[in-house]
């Protein structure tokens, strides 16, 4: 018999389609795994409303659970309460940094360059390669980098 723990563990192996170093569980988009009398309900929440990764995430979850032999489940979308960058796990912050993306920070901007750790930074644009990121540049090493912006 599959346990809730098993499902959470399988989900934590599914990479985010855009940022593969963190998992869907790290990202905080898995809002619940519940047994509803005769089937599992997996509740997901989108990051940004228009993020194309949302569709891919649903598909990845569906495929991964079927690969584990799970059949009696449904994937439910939930938008309230709205996803926030506060739900990204602490462990994921470090993984993002190592991948070259400055993690979200309450200050509203990155605290240090993910490459050289300098705090001499400038914002290029509040928008970046995906809806969730902004473009910044380090004035010390001159490298541009992505910042995971807070919402």
């Amino acid at each position, binding site marked *: 018999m599959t346990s809730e723990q098993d499902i959470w563990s399988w989900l934590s192996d599914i990479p985010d389609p855009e940022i593969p170093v963190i998992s869907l569980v790290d990202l905080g988009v898995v809002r619940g795994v519940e047994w509803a009398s005769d089937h599992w309900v997996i509740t997901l929440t989108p990051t940004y409303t228009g993020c194309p990764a949302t569709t891919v995430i649903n598909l990845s979850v569906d495929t991964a659970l079927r690969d584990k032999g799970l059949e009696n489940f449904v994937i439910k979308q939930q938008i309230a309460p*709205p996803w926030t960058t506060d739900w990204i796990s602490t462990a994921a912050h470090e993984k993002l940094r190592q991948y070259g993306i400055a993690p979200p920070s309450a200050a509203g901007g990155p605290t240090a360059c993910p490459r050289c750790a300098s705090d001499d930074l400038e914002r290029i644009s509040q928008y970046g390669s995906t809806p969730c990121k902004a473009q910044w540049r380090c004035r010390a090493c001159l490298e541009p980098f992505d910042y995971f912006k807070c919402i």
Partner: protein
Amino acid sequence: MTTELFEYLLRLGDNSLVLGHRLSEWCGKSPILEEDIAISNTALDFIGQTQLWLGLAATVEGQGRSADDLAMLRDVWDFRNLLLVEQPNGNFGETIMRQYLFDAWHVLLLDGLTRSHHQEISAIAQKVVKEVRYHIERSRDLVIRLGDGTPVSHEKMQIALDRLWPYVGEMFDVDPVEHTLIEQGLIPDTSTLRAAFDAEVLKTFATATLTLPSSNFAHLGGKSGKRHSEHLGHLLTQMQWLQRAYPGATW
């Protein structure tokens, strides 16, 4: 009440859809790469918001139509967006001015909708308002930089403001559809948001060295669907081209 609610949800969805489409027309053609990325990301946010609003509209209508059906299979006379959002992009400054005027109203409206007694409306508004706060941060910043920029950019922004200001009044015009929903506590009364809107834009235009037009004349007829401008039809021929050429096509 269902009829009014459906109408109103079309207004919200059509605003996002038409403005999102307009912004997507800039994709690959913006003045600089960062702005191209920003404008396309904003377009994407609007298309995402459209899916939520038109999805809810379709559910409320209960006729088995989907958000896609509403977006792609209606013609001009069934659209309920504001006249402002269907205005052509013009130059980059005009696009930014249109965006700023819309954003300044949109943030206030969504904030009011978060307190709607309708659970789904409130949920969508709570989600969307977070994205829209980033929209206004950028459009306000650009209005200031271009308005208070070179003589050429200043002149273009003043022309844009003069041209688009007559489309502001429609955002605050409360008609019977909205009256019904306001009474039910489902939506905020937009006429009460006007003071906050004026405070926002007056401050920005002062910093941007732009002069507010003296007349508050307002073109009406977009959100009621009675009189769209000629531009919407042209927009739809592009946006709905695939469904018109190949009805029912999917992939």
